[in-house]
């Protein structure tokens, strides 16, 4: 408990608490509540109907597929980047970290556009792709690329500070006792970073499944084919099919809530084993 001299008077404390709770209720709780309320407005049958509809299911499948490709690739890249950066010294290290972080400061729309410039019809590889009857833009590969780009920093940026904090001593001990490099990674490094890795993967997955702007540019919005869940929501909404839009949106809101719960559990139970927390 803080001493009276350095705590605010009771009325001020109450006022600040009320201000915060009011603001959070307005800014966070209401938007969340309105998704579920509007989704269920036309009854549970209409709600389930909107979710089970063929285009919605196709969108759900596509969202899961894209995440199932993008997230594992990001895990491999994130682990590799963290290993190289945290366990070795080399020049231009901070430049490399900046490059890994870069996608966070790029607008989602620009994140999609850059792949149109490379793989689109007027793009660098467009004519070559067309000659070989392959399609990246307005097809699944484009969605995957754009998703990897926007989620690129999540795993690496969680693992790099964590592995830097843990240093090299344990790995060096295992190696000098004769463990192979792979065994060292598997039995020494991975157990040390598993919760941090899970934390990064959790956030990476939430963003991968919810990404809108970047995939919107590369998707082409072909119903039942290149529409992910967020894009499906946009189409329903623009067709004034609000109840269905919110019903589908409630699925993603549910995913967000599950993500928040798991993330909080990790923060509460394993604070010391996540980067930059509990120290």
């Amino acid at each position, binding site marked *: 408990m803080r001493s009276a001299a350095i705590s605010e008077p009771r009325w001020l404390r109450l006022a600040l608490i009320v201000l915060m709770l009011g603001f959070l209720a307005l800014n966070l709780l209401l938007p*969340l509540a309105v998704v579920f309320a509007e989704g269920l407005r036309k009854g549970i049958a209409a709600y389930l109907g909107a979710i089970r509809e063929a285009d919605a299911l196709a969108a759900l499948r596509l969202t899961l597929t894209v995440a199932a490709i993008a997230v594992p690739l990001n895990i491999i890249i994130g682990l590799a980047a963290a290993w190289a950066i945290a366990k070795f010294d080399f020049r231009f290290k901070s430049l490399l970290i*900046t490059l890994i972080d870069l*996608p966070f400061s*790029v607008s989602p*729309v620009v994140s999609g556009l850059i792949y149109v410039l490379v793989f689109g019809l007027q793009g660098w590889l467009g004519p070559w792709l067309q000659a070989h009857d392959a399609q990246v833009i307005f097809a699944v590969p484009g969605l995957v690329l754009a998703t990897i780009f926007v989620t690129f920093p999540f795993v690496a940026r969680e693992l790099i500070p964590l592995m830097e904090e843990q240093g090299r001593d344990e790995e060096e001990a295992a190696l000098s006792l004769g463990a192979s490099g792979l065994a060292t990674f598997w039995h020494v490094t991975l157990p040390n970073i598993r919760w941090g890795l899970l934390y990064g993967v959790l956030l990476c997955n939430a963003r991968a499944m919810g990404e809108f*702007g970047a995939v919107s540019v590369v998707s082409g919005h072909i119903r039942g084919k290149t529409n992910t869940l967020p894009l499906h*929501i946009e189409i329903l909404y623009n067709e004034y099919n609000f109840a269905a839009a919110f019903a589908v949106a409630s699925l993603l809101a549910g995913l*967000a809530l599950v993500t928040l719960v798991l993330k*909080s559990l990790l923060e509460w139970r394993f604070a010391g084993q996540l980067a930059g927390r509990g120290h």
Partner: protein
Amino acid sequence: MTIYMNEVAAGFASRITAVAPMPTSRQVWGVASSNPSRPRSIIPGFGLTMGITLFAVSVIVLIPLSAVFIKAAGMTGAQFAATALSRRALDAYKLSFGAAAAAAALNAVFGLVTAWVLVRYELPGKRIISALVDLPFALPTAVAGIALTALYAPNGWIGRWLAPQGITIAYTPLGVVIALVFVGLPFVVRTVEPVLADLGGDVEEAAATLGASRFQTFRRVVLPAIGPALLTGCALAFARAVGEYGSVIFIAGNMPFKSEIAPLLIIVQLEQYNVAGATAIAATMLVISFALLLVINLAQGWQRRRRSA
């Protein structure tokens, strides 16, 4: 050492060859040996992991991003200006940057209050409230966009009470600010929180002992200490808000010259098959974003030095 390397390489190769080509031996040792004064680590795998990282950074980030600048550099000044500096684009930048600044300012106040209460006061359910602060990170932007519109549209939950007073939020620049406040809040709270928690009570006690009022202590002792973090949080929120798309377009109304944000203008150009125009606007936005990023990094470095000093 080489033996370990090869074992790791062999172990990983089966899983990774589909993703990245194996680095050549020149790649493996070329980078590592560039600094001969450093004692070599016995840890293996530098070549492999560095190879994967450089490959991914190049193919996913660097080459595609450079396409924007290479394409923009290939335009004549007049071509570039025709879209990127048109009246419509200038109004869009003005809205994107203006609304982002307004949202960052609002979040400075509400974010600071939120962080303050979370760090310093006893409150039932504080952990849950704290977890909820991260909702904007987890909620897909399109969902946030339609939810905020449902709240603030003239017939919405909140909008219907404001409409009789003549206040419209949805489909105006005010709606854009509301969406950007939603998106930016966790940046400010999560940046300020740890600094506030680290700030021991002793300096404040010293100030109080020397006769400072609570407000004086806050203004003269606490605020200077958390100021850099608060600024950093606002800058992060601002940077995110400038490029934000999904949560804004539903509530903005998207009227050219009035409520059209810059990222949307890129989409509009693409829909009109004006890839060059879209690229010109994107290049303009990227340059501004990277400049921002540089400022944020400098500010964070300055902050770290202050804290460790």
